[in-house]
């Protein structure tokens, strides 16, 4: 059993404080503070909110969402571990680490409330730093429109009739300033009468050039449990994603450098420099964080099968995609 504070208290800066189990969250003008029975942690509040935004929007995503090297969540798809220091060797050795498990239905609303209350007017946690206002200061307004964006999840493919629609100026998706040179032409479609719903195509690169957000994979094409989840990247991935399955990256444009660390200890494993056309797997036993100096297009490719984490844990499948 866990205890979730039903009525968060408000501090002198106007922000609510939140608690779940034995974790407590509060913020002031610059920082987020996290307390648990054996320790405490502080993060710059803009970094905290950018990480929290991804965790909320992705419903705790695949595997581990590390807010930084101390704080994070691990998804068990129905339950969520909230941890401090669990994947940090020094914290574990010092026995300062702490972890509690909550039903997703319990932690999800708390995280959503915290994101809503702590995000000030003008700050968009999904936007690149160059395209948003400040997260700092005493509470002033909110930006619920930005933090509750609907995530694109195509059932077959974007532009198929009845599925996700194309992005246009008219539906609020202007071309991003760093993709102004991306051609906006669409494929020529010549369906025979009666086959208009099956001869389908669209310009994925133009679609991505109109993304308002960064580091936010959205499903644009589906082949059973194979999901194409492209995203546009600028500056730094606000989380370190700890894999519970193999994940693939196809660099569609420009360049990203990935820092790869051991998933459990944080020890450095490699750097991966990806340029247009490069394809690389992220093994299931690492965590990674990307750096994109110019806004770039990245195709994240996932196998969404719910069986994979257990199969890896039981040693039925390896943590790498292929051996050669």
């Amino acid at each position: 059993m866990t205890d979730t504070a039903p009525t968060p208290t408000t501090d002198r800066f106007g922000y609510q404080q939140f608690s779940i189990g034995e974790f407590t969250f509060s913020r002031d003008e610059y920082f987020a503070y996290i307390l648990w029975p054996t320790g405490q942690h502080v993060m710059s509040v803009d970094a905290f909110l950018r990480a929290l935004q991804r965790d909320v929007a992705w419903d705790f995503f695949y595997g581990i969402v590390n807010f930084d090297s101390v704080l994070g969540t691990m998804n068990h798809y129905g339950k969520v571990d909230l941890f401090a220091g669990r994947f940090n060797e020094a914290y574990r050795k010092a026995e300062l680490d702490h972890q509690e498990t909550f039903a997703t239905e319990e932690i999800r609303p708390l995280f959503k409330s915290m994101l809503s209350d702590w995000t000030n007017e003008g700050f968009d946690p999904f936007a690149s730093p160059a395209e948003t206002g400040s997260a700092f200061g005493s509470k002033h307004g909110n930006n619920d429109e930005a933090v509750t964006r609907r995530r694109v999840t195509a059932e077959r493919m974007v532009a198929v009739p009845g599925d996700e629609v194309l992005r246009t100026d008219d539906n609020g998706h202007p071309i991003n300033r760093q993709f102004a040179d991306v051609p906006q032409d669409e494929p020529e479609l010549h369906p025979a009468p009666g086959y208009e719903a099956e001869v389908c195509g669209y310009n994925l690169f133009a679609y991505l050039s109109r993304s308002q957000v960064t580091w936010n994979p959205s499903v644009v094409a589906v082949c059973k449990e194979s999901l194409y989840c492209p995203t546009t990247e600028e500056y730094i991935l606000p989380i370190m994603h700890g894999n519970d399955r193999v994940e693939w990256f196809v660099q569609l444009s420009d360049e990203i450098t990935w820092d790869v660390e051991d998933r459990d200890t944080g020890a450095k494993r490699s750097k991966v420099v990806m340029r247009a056309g490069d394809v690389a797997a992220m093994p299931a036993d690492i965590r990674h964080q990307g750096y994109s100096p110019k806004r770039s297009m990245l195709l994240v490719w996932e196998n969404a099968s719910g069986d994979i984490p257990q199969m890896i844990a039981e040693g039925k499948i390896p943590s790498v995609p292929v051996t050669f």
Partner: protein
Amino acid sequence: MEYRTQFGSLESYHRGRVEPIDDDPKRYAFSNLFEVAAHSKPYEKVAVGKNLQYVIEAIRAEGTSEWRVADHDETALVMDGEVTVELLDLADTGVIAPGTDGSIGLDGDPAGTPMGHAVAGRGHMVLLPARRAYRFRADDPSVILLQTIHGKDTVEKWSTICQTMV
């Protein structure tokens, strides 16, 4: 400031790399799909990504392919050049057994009703609907990234295409 978006092509790609600190680069199966297509035969289905039964294949499109069909949706993303995708409503849908993984090649010109075609350039994604036959045509060498399931014609040559050394 004016930004220049850098895409790749058969003629111009600049492969990155794995820089291991305490790891084996082979674990990342790092390749470049333009480099793979540059060294492939026309319409060779070379896996550049594999996630259990699912694959993404780099395909060099050049000339006209055979007709193929799958029991599930696939998508073709044109990464370079221009590719025409023809679709056919097969007269005999029994050519592909239900539950078959990946696509199979069809002999000659199968009987059916032409559904139309799409002309796709760089960045364009075309749906290859389940149980509809398709073939590709490209006047100049082009590159397709195909989202599909590992089938009998999928080619795996990881040691050839992937970074193996520091």
